């Protein structure tokens, strides 16, 4: 163990006498973090106080916390948008014969808008945003790697999302009737995927290159580990989607005879919006729980390598993404057919589910071995992960051919469980890291209530679609299906669930805005947490750390505290 630096000094650059004497670190000798990040962050302040100056400051900021908050903020706007679409969707299905809101084409585009915003407008960017905001602080870096690329990533995603919205409104999505708008749809999806790729590249490079001295990969916090796995999985799978988009775009623009025009978009792009590819976007949800649970239990994470292995196992979903299919378990045919079907099914559906179960079980071990206190962040996280698990289990069932659930609304229920479950976990993450991102601690009791409402909303919006799937209600809104009778009830409940989710997100944002407006200053380490981000002031300053600490365990801050934790 070398010299000591006070935790406060990590930010302020104060060096204790022991350090000066014993190890030759002099005041002002701030080690350079990487080749690229010394210039970052400090230039984000603007002297002007006008709205234009403020907008300009946000648009050009290279501070990772601002870029992350942009992603998070717009994803939450999309959460409300998608919940409203969910309400309309449910109403449309209640009785299309007597109360039709949209005609055939518009209803189809509404289905696509719902699906698109759930996955690429909400689930993926929400967690990438949290990773951008939190990961550099967690790994002890002054900045994110390639901050301008991360910033570009946000704007590409933002404008790409806008193009997709315009094209779908103008009937240009898959199976749409407007060919020009179809081109715009492909361009929009391509642009937003480039945005997500850019952001993922920044996150992965930060974790691989900008960790604090001594922090080997097996010592990085669980959330950062999950961010690394998710980012690399994104970098490996999304380009495959890009290859389809390039082909579709060229064919759709010039020929329209190889990929099936508008219909082809659904055939060749549908897998991006479906499980198992969507599992890639929820890997970080397990990381949030693994981060929050041991802090709430005031104990070091037991069986940490198993936890990291479980999180990594979820990334086997990339196999299904690369092969662009959901590998249905089909036990007909020869023994060879049965074997290959079973192996591919278990690789793409079974292993990710197993990874989630392992990560959940090991994260919860900390509760068994510690002195747990259930706070709002933990409640949101555990409930959200349970919902994600319900979605993954549903996906497992839906891909068994004999279950007869393919093409039914059951698959919509899967996506909703994953997306709304992801929103709950993300709200837990925001509650946990609010002191660092906004300098506030949210009212635990109020947020706990919202977690309960979020659980009810997610179950209400998703479970009825599972049940309606068993009643053969088709996916999307179709003409010719009798939506009257028992399924009407399930669609009403699904709409009510989406309404509740919109309410929860709005209420949460309201609580956050009120807390920030009140300016209630949060302590530097309000949760008595374990990782480096809690060693700097709240809210985290630009450039995060003024000087760096050497890390020698996966819980560096806990090492520095007087022993309070229950030994694992």
């Amino acid at each position, binding site marked *: 163990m070398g010299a000591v630096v006070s935790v406060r000094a990590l930010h302020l650059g104060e060096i204790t006498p022991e350090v000066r004497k014993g190890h030759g670190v002099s005041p002002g000798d701030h080690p350079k*973090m990487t080749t690229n990040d010394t210039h970052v962050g400090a230039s984000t302040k603007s002297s002007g106080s006008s709205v234009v100056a403020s907008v300009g400051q946000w648009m050009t900021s290279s501070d990772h916390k601002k870029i992350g908050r942009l992603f998070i903020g717009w994803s939450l706007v999309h959460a409300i948008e998608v919940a409203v679409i969910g309400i309309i969707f449910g109403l449309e299905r209640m009785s299309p014969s007597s109360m039709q809101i949209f005609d055939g084409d518009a209803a189809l585009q509404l289905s696509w808008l719902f699906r698109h915003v759930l996955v690429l407008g909400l689930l993926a960017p929400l967690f990438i945003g949290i990773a951008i905001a939190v990961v550099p602080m967690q790994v002890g870096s002054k900045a994110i790697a*390639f901050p301008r690329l991360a910033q570009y990533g946000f704007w590409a995603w933002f404008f790409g999302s806008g193009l997709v919205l315009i094209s779908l409104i103008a009937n240009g999505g898959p199976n749409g009737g407007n060919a020009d708008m179809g081109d715009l749809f492909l361009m929009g999806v391509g642009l937003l995927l480039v945005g997500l790729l850019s952001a993922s*590249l920044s996150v992965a490079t930060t974790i691989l290159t900008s*960790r604090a001295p*001594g922090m080997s990969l097996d010592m990085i916090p669980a959330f950062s580990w999950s961010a690394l796995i998710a980012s690399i999985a994104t970098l490996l799978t999304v*380009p495959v989607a890009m290859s389809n988009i390039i082909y579709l775009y060229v064919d759709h623009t*010039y*020929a329209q005879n190889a990929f099936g025009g508008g219909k082809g978009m659904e055939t060749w792009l549908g897998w991006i919006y479906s499980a198992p590819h969507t599992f890639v976007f929820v890997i970080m949800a397990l990381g949030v729980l693994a981060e929050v649970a041991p802090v709430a239990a005031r104990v070091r994470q037991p069986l940490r390598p198993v936890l990291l292995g479980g999180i990594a196992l979820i990334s086997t979903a990339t196999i299904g993404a690369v092969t662009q299919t959901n590998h249905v378990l089909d036990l007909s045919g020869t023994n060879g057919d049965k074997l290959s079907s079973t192996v591919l099914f278990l690789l793409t559906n079974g292993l990710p589910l197993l990874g989630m179960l392992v990560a959940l079980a090991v994260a919860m071990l900390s509760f068994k071995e510690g002195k747990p206190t259930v706070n709002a962040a933990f409640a949101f996280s555990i409930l959200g992960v349970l919902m994600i698990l319900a979605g993954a289990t549903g996906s497992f069932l839906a891909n068994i051919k004999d279950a007869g659930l393919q093409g039914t609304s059951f698959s919509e229920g899967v996506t909703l469980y994953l997306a709304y479950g992801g929103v709950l976990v993300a709200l837990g993450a925001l509650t946990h890291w609010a002191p660092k991102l906004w300098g506030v601690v949210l009212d635990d009791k109020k947020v706990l209530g919202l977690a309960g409402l979020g659980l009810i909303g997610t179950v209400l919006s998703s479970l009825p679609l599972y049940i309606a799937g068993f009643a053969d209600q088709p996916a999307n809104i179709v003409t010719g299906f009798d939506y009257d009778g028992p399924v009407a009830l399930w669609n009403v409940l699904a709409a009510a669930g989406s309404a509740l989710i919109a309410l929860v997100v709005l209420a949460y944002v309201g609580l956050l805005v009120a807390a920030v407006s009140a300016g209630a200053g949060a302590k530097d380490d309000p949760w008595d947490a374990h990782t480096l981000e809690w060693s700097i002031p709240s809210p985290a300053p630009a450039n995060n750390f003024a000087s*760096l600490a050497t890390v020698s365990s996966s819980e560096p801050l806990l090492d520095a505290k007087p022993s309070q934790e229950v030994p694992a």
Partner: protein
Amino acid sequence: MTLALPSAPSQTSRRQVLVGTALVAAAAGMLIAGMLAMWMKFRAGAPTRESADGLKIIKDWMSKDIIVPEVAANTMFATFPFAALMAQWAVYAAKRRDGQHRSLALVILFGIGIAIVNAQVAIYAQMEVVVAEGAFGAMFYAITGTMLALIVSGMAFTAVAFFRSVGGRDDDLQVISANALYWYFLTAAFTAVWFFVYVQK
């Protein structure tokens, strides 16, 4: 509250640009691999019909009127290893802090890039593939156009490295190495494209 954490020694560079380039190469590799997989899928699934005399089975994939200009395609294929060699020469010179040879290698590399782009344009001119003519036309332009875009990106990277080099950045080994890594990736990617698109067709 004052808690003790061990202080850190001065930190050396962690090769951010090199690692970032490796990740970009991996992602771009998946892009090309995905496109080639689709190419093979469509080629294998192309409809077949009998010839007019009934003696042969013809696959409706690439029109028999289209002739691949083998000289240009093979020259491109053979040129890429030289590009990689020049990129590695730049790394060698950078390690020795030899600014003149480093800059020379980068200029030649950029020139090779122009030659490769020129060969691709020649292929387009000579093949005269109609983009709207079946799956082959659309997919041919999509995959070769994507490859061309990746090559132009490599040239831009080389140009940046060159200007940094002539600007006197003698400590730029990381950027030069990353540039070489990207050209190695381009060589591997084009080898695959050459084999599946120009040789196997």
